[in-house]
């Protein structure tokens, strides 16, 4: 099956600054793809290249069945976009803005639109200048979600939404994927990504540093193990693949690289396990491991 978005070694420079420095991304049909990275990592730049607003300096970019720069207006009939910082026309009402943005793509499904307005509890009669940040965001979300598109590009779409609306957003995205829509979701809200995304790509300084399903990423990384043993696990740190070992009396806590987990547990077993808890790394752990200043590489 042809991917919806294929990006290979994408480079975009602003003067001498390389905003994108060989970024790769693949969005498969029907999937929700999480696009993670710290501020300034190049997420928005990538999305703006995909929208044909910026021109790639080098690398290949393929969007749906065309070139995002050359075929922009044809491709845009099949996608919708929500920016992270929505600016509206001060003298247009929310409804007018929605009708404008959605109407450009084709006929508006008024039933779906009104349903979304109700779900997001948006007052569409206000002028653009009177909306708060969260409400401007809702206007853009309704305009994007009410169309019949193949691809949603969401750039931190829930910034400014309250937790209730956050949940509404998630269920709206689930509805969209049930219709077969592919979603590229750039987000800092890791719960949201864990709940919605099939696969994630983590970018840093304009490069993709990790990509795969959450399970893949977890398997590739360390598991945290906390155990209480009859005899103190004083020599456990000498085993290969163990990190951050802390021994306090009979209690030991450590991180173990996935390939060495079995050997480590066996070693603990020989010491006589009293209690054992282990948990896979949370997305937050993965995230922090990539962005934290400790440059401990993820075990491969």
């Amino acid at each position, binding site marked *: 099956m042809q991917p919806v978005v294929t990006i290979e070694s994408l480079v975009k420079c602003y003067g001498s600054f390389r905003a994108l420095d060989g970024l790769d991304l693949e969005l498969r049909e029907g999937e929700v793809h999480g696009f993670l990275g710290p501020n300034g990592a190049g997420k928005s730049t990538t999305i*703006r290249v995909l*929208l*044909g*607003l*910026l*021109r790639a300096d080098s690398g290949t970019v393929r969007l749906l069945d065309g070139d995002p720069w050359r075929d*922009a*207006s*044809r491709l*845009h*009939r099949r*996608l*919708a*976009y929500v*920016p992270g*910082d929505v*600016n*509206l*026309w*001060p*003298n*247009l*009402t929310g*409804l*007018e*803005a929605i*009708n*404008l*943005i959605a*109407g*450009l*793509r084709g006929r*508006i499904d*008024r039933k779906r639109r009104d349903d979304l307005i109700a779900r997001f509890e948006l*007052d*569409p*009669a*206000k*002028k653009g*200048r*009177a909306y708060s940040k969260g409400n401007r965001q809702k206007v*853009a979300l309704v*305009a994007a979600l009410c169309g019949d598109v193949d691809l949603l*590009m969401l750039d931190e779409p829930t910034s400014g939404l309250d937790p209730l609306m956050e949940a509404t957003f998630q269920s709206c995205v689930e509805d969209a994927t049930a219709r077969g829509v592919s979603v590229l979701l750039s987000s800092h809200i890791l719960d949201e990504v864990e709940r919605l995304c099939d696969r994630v790509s983590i970018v840093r300084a304009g490069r993709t540093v990790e990509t795969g399903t959450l399970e893949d990423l977890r398997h590739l990384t360390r598991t945290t193990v906390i155990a209480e043993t009859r005899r103190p696990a004083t020599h456990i740190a000498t085993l290969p693949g163990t990190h951050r070992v802390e021994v306090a009396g009979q209690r030991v806590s450590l991180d173990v690289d996935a390939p060495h987990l079995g050997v480590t547990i066996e070693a603990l077993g020989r010491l006589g396990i009293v209690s054992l808890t282990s948990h896979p790394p949370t997305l937050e752990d993965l995230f922090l491991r990539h962005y934290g200043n400790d440059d401990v590489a993820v075990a491969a």
Partner: protein
Amino acid sequence: MSTPAAVAILIRAHWRRDRWLLFAWITGGCFLYFSQAKSVEAMYPTAEDLEQAAVAMSSNQAMLAMTGPARALDTIGGQVAWQSAAYGAVVAGLMSMLIVGRHTRMEEETGRAELIRAGAIDRLAPLASAVGLAMLANVVLGSVVGGGLIAYGLPAAGSMTLGASLTLVGWVFTGVAAVAAQLSVGTRTAYAITSVAIGASFFVRGLGDAGPAAVSWFSPIGWGQATRPFADERWWPLALSAAATGGLLTIAVWLHGRRDYGTGLWTLTARRTPDTDIGAWALAWKLHRGTIIGWSLGLLISGLGYGALADSADDVLGDSDFTADLFAGTTLVDGFLSTAVLMLALLAAAAATVSALRPDGEESAGRVEHLLAGPLHRSRWALQHTVVTVLGTVTVLLSAGIGTGIAHAAVTTDADAVWPPVAAALSYLPAVLVVTAVIRLAHGLGWASAVVGWTALAWCSFVGLFGDLMALPSSVTMLSPFEHVARMPADQFAVVPWVALCGVALCVSVAGQALLAHRDLR
């Protein structure tokens, strides 16, 4: 933090943002005065020349309406005051309007003022600092004009009075701008209110100076001129301006205290909006219509004023050499109309500039993404704005021409007199379009098109209004498209330059469009 300390910090921050803007306005304002001193001296080398001109000028109601009351016109100082004070007042007014608007209503509209107001400062500090900077700028403007004219060699008392009256008029419009900033939610509306006040002040004093003198006392610009610089100066009219400034600022503070942050006196009322489809064309029209309608009305009224005065140019002056020089036309009436239409066309070009800068504004505000993330092609988007700008330019020019023509026809009771000013106004269409095309080119290149556009327009205005007086070389003046248009109705319509300018506008515009299609959006 104490209020004066906070205001001082804010004024420093405003200064940091505005220094070039202030430099440009103050330099421009000073130039207005000095260019008059220079040109009067050049045009009338002997006292006899000047005296002869003074007699002619002081009885020409049309000129009185466009400048001010005739006093001491046989002196260079009197000439400078007469020809510059009213326009200087407009410059000071617009400068004050921009400074106050930028730092009060615009800051609230964009939400930046929240950051400031959340600080440990008095609620009034942002208003006070904006007003303070505007008043300071007017003091500097008045001082430089006054001091400069003394340095030029004009009498000190007159120069000082002229400078002080300029400062005080600027203060009054600072007060108007401060009140306007409290009334509306939008910055543009606040600017529109102040602009109308400035325009009305100019118009009212024109009526008074050409007709019953008492009428001029209803205009702040009239108060400034009532100080009689270089003609037996009197200072007490300045007290009127000071009192009006105090009154207006008091009203502004009172209104400020009665409204919530981010709201105006005219609050937005939520109402059901009709659920109609709105396309990109409708949006383009909605974005431009305020500019087009407002400027059309303004120029219609200005045209009515000029048209009403045109006929009197003939009655009063007869055929002296001087006026033939001044208006360089076949008949004085036609000469006057030609100059009036040129000024109106330059104002129409200002409207067209505002309109042509819209796409750049939409891009900078990040609103164009919504449209271009849809299937709207960016060339098509730019073209829509261009079409609205062109049609809007035609409308504004037509309004100016019709206003002038109708009033002229009414005064002369000759129905056919409607058409020459209309044709004259429309003859400037390609020149105005060249200015808008240059803006499109700058936008296509990703340059600061606002700077390019306003600089180009300022240059065209300078050359159009002062080029002959300053005897600028034709290689320089010919850079302005307005210089290639025949000065109708005094001169015959010239087809070739008209068509050529249309061609230039089209080519530059197409180049801008092509460049826009190939660059990154901001």
